[in-house]
């Protein structure tokens, strides 16, 4: 029983990472109704860029590196916007998708070139903190990631529902033409959406690097796949959905691994997705139409 609880809690806590990536995917989808396939790659790229802080300031504390990743993520987000969404007419749905795939490949390749493909040690905060309740343990650093996800969610929801930018963003998401007629600069809103998602992504990448202990280009593909799965399960466009779905997927994934082994684990995660698609296609928090 304890084993089960421990597995579940380990998985759920790790799911906070998926939650952060899911938030980014769902934010872009919610506003522009497009998938940004390069999001996880840009997040990891931001995390790598954060390591440059260590080059500038020797023995910089972890939070500085995270902040560097945060900023770099925002810049990469803007870059992805410009290369994939700004010039391509939004009426052709396939072109932006393929373009983001191109950016994913490009960002991955740049990372490999600059680091010769070698895993990079990543600084962490609270990685030696383990809360113990008898035999039961909780990773301190993952609790931090979870805390940040919740803060990010609150911050984003506040932004979306309490600020002018948020109002403009929601207007563009619902009725881009009407929004333009009201004087809202659609391109500016879209660009800002990407920047904000990118900022969050950079931070997510840094936290992932910190939780895993090392950054590697190997992270990109599984994060992209899991991020997309989480986004769909949570409900496309729903930020709270992404968080709950992230934790859910994290927990189930670990349980599947415990009971069926690591080679079959991901098959069951896919089955979980299909179960949602069959029984609740809108996801946990379906978008109100």
């Amino acid at each position, binding site marked *: 029983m304890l084993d089960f609880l421990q597995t579940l809690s380990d998985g759920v806590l790790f799911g906070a990472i998926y939650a952060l990536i899911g938030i980014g995917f769902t934010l872009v*989808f919610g506003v522009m*109704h*497009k*998938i940004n396939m390069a999001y996880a790659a840009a997040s990891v790229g931001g995390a790598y860029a954060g390591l440059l802080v260590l080059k500038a300031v020797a023995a910089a504390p972890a939070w500085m590196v995270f902040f560097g990743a945060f900023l770099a993520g925002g810049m990469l987000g803007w870059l992805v916007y410009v*290369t*994939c969404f700004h*010039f*391509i*007419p939004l009426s*052709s*749905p*396939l*072109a*932006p*998708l*393929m*373009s983001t*795939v*191109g*950016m*994913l*490949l*490009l*960002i*991955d*390749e*740049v990372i*490999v*070139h600059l680091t010769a493909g070698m895993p990079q040690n990543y600084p962490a905060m609270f990685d030696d903190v383990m809360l113990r309740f008898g035999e039961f343990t909780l990773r301190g650093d993952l609790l931090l990631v979870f805390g940040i996800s919740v803060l990010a969610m609150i911050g984003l929801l506040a932004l979306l529902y309490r600020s002018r930018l948020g109002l403009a963003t929601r207007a563009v998401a619902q009725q881009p033409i009407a929004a333009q007629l009201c004087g809202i600069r659609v391109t500016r809103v879209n660009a800002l959406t990407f920047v904000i998602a990118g900022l969050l992504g950079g931070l997510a990448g840094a936290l992932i690097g910190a939780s895993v202990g090392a950054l590697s280009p190997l992270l990109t*593909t599984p994060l*992209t*796949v899991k991020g*997309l*799965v989480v*986004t*769909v399960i949570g409900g*496309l466009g729903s930020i709270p959905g992404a968080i709950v779905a992230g934790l859910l997927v994290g927990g189930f994934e670990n349980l599947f691994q415990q009971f069926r082994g690591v*080679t*079959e684990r*991901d*098959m069951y995660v*896919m*089955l979980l*997705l*299909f179960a949602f*698609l*069959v029984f609740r*296609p809108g996801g946990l928090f379906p978008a109100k139409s």
Partner: protein
Amino acid sequence: MDFYFGLAQTVGIHTLLGLSAYIVLLTGQVSLAQAAFFAIGAYSAGMLTVLAGWHVVPALGVGSMLGAVTACAVGFPALRVKGLMLVVATLAFGEGVRLFFFNFDYQVAKGGIRVGPLGGEGFRQIRFFQEHGWTTGEVMLFIWVFVIAVMALLWWFDRSRYGAVLRSVGEDEVAAQSVGINLTAVKVSAMTVGGAIAGVGGGLYAHYTTHIEHANFNVLLATFAIAYPIVGGLRTVFGTLTAVIFVQAFLIEGLRFLGDWRNLLFGALIVLAMNLRPHGLFGRHGA
């Protein structure tokens, strides 16, 4: 000369992969599952020639049929899922199939050693072509017979009512339904044909690389499958062929002299192509 024949083989097989996604894209469905049907074709055709001693042609037929059957089975639930959710669903299906093969063991003793797929280690020694003395040129011609047949079939579809029906569903489902087109039949049939094409492609792939493993049929291959028709444009099958030649012959082999820069150019050129020609190199139908 061998090298050029080998390159033509690669182009041929990738064209089949691209065409399997092309026909599905015509109906407006973005399917990342084509690599899965490709895998099914590869493993089944391989197993038939290696374990059961079949000739490669009937083995390819079975591979194609299994690809078609699986695609048909996927086609029905795919109807319920629209747009980008379909992308994720087909991606998940593709990963599921890959993981199935990761866990799939079926070995038989043949002449003192065990042959057949062995889970994570893959399926080695699919040497039908070499064992029967086929030269590189002969294999190339063999592959291209299939490619030309499929291209001719799809080109003929485009000239016939079926093609118009497919594209009308892709353009506007509501309008198509309102003129009495059966959306289910159209979308599932396109998926099935796509699965059949991918099955043949996969079977050929297994025999030309002689060794297949689950990792060959990953997200990247699934992405390539849709990349070819998107970059080439949906107006004509030649778009997909051109895109395959552009990627495999020009980018991968032709730019070898650029050394390290080749990989960077890859992603950059895709981004550039999409920005300059959002509807693909050949454009889209009617545009």
